[in-house]
């Protein structure tokens, strides 16, 4: 691959999605973009990048961005954060939101929906304690294809065997041909939207809990800081942020600090977000 082509592609994906593509990861261009090239009748990566440079085919530009940013996902990934959500975070909000009886949770970059549906299953299992609550889970992803898959809630046999306890499969899924579909009542608990984390996020409303796991690792520090500042702007002062196991806010953002003894969980610091973001973040949480 010509260095010039690599530089163009690298800059292109950084601008579009925040993805940082180093030279060691150049092979990803080949493995992830060749299927797109073939679909478009192009013979090589060079031809595809040439078409991207022309930049007129907005469908193509979207498809290459989606192909590069697709991440694997599975139910109850890493399990610990979900145990913490169920046993620590949920009880905390059950208390602090007892009069409001509303909780909003956001799964940023939710891929094909396993994370929001895992949370939906937990909330359903805790239904007795949440009776009368108006809760909402919002799942967003940059990829329209992923959002469509998440909405459909259809998973392959392979996907439902990764992380999902068999009792929950039997309880909440139906077999549809070779695939498994999550129950309509759980699908109704999650609202999915196509959203790019690099854009203005205020339209999403406010969130008490944000899952943003294994997303920031793809960004450079400046972009990480921007996304974290935006998340802070959407949160009340007692909000909770979940990051992936390999991620941290330390040295990147002073809007969040680790919650002692709760690995992977972060809470807002005393630093206040800019007035504009704070005011708008209230919009989605009436009474906040």
């Amino acid at each position, binding site marked *: 691959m010509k260095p010039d082509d690599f530089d163009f592609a690298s800059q292109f994906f950084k601008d579009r999605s925040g993805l940082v593509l180093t030279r060691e990861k150049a092979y990803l261009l080949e493995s992830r973009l060749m299927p797109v090239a073939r679909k478009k009748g192009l013979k090589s990566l060079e031809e595809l990048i040439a078409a991207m440079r022309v930049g007129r085919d907005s469908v193509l530009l979207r498809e290459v961005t989606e192909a590069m940013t697709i991440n694997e996902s599975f139910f109850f990934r890493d*399990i610990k954060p979900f145990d913490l959500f169920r046993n620590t975070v949920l009880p905390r909000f059950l208390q602090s939101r007892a009069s409001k009886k509303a909780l909003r949770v956001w799964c940023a970059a939710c891929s094909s929906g396993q994370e929001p549906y895992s949370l939906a299953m937990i909330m359903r299992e805790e239904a007795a304690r949440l009776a009368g609550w108006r809760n909402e889970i919002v799942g967003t992803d940059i990829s329209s294809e992923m959002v469509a898959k998440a909405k459909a809630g259809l998973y392959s046999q392979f996907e439902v065997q990764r992380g999902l306890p068999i009792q929950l499969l039997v309880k909440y899924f139906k077999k549809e041909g070779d695939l498994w579909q999550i129950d309509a009542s759980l699908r109704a608990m999650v609202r999915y939207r196509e959203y790019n984390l690099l854009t203005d996020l205020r339209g999403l409303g406010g969130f008490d809990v944000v899952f943003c796991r294994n997303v920031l690792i793809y960004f450079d520090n400046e972009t990480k800081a921007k996304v974290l500042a935006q998340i802070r702007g959407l949160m009340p002062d007692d909000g909770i942020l979940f990051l992936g196991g390999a991620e941290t806010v330390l040295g990147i953002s002073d809007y969040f600090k680790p919650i002692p003894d709760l690995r992977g969980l972060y809470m807002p610091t005393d630093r206040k977000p800019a007035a504009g973001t704070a005011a708008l973040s209230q919009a989605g949480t009436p009474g906040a």
Partner: protein
Amino acid sequence: MKSCLVVDDSRVIRKVARNILEDLGFEVSEAANGQEALDVCKAKAFDSILLDWYMPVMNGIEFLRALRALPNGKGPIVVFCTTENDISHIQAAIEAGANEYVMKPFDSEIIQAKFAQVGLL
């Protein structure tokens, strides 16, 4: 070192499962049907059992029911591993006392995930 009894009438499947489980640090024994497995289980307490459904002599679900009826039969964690992938089979397995259920085809990732889920890893 935790032990696992692999019960399957296919020698190839037993071999594949053995390789995966040994990589995960298990001491692996094998049985070719439910009756053989039951005999072994009367003599030895296993930490876990990876269990096929359809086998000659005694099938997996019959074995599981017989195992759970043994004096110390509640102990082993039983993971079904079968091509049967409809809800009714899965339901029957859970009712008979299975702890987890793997639908074939499986790979090391699925075995690892399922064994971790039931606390074996």
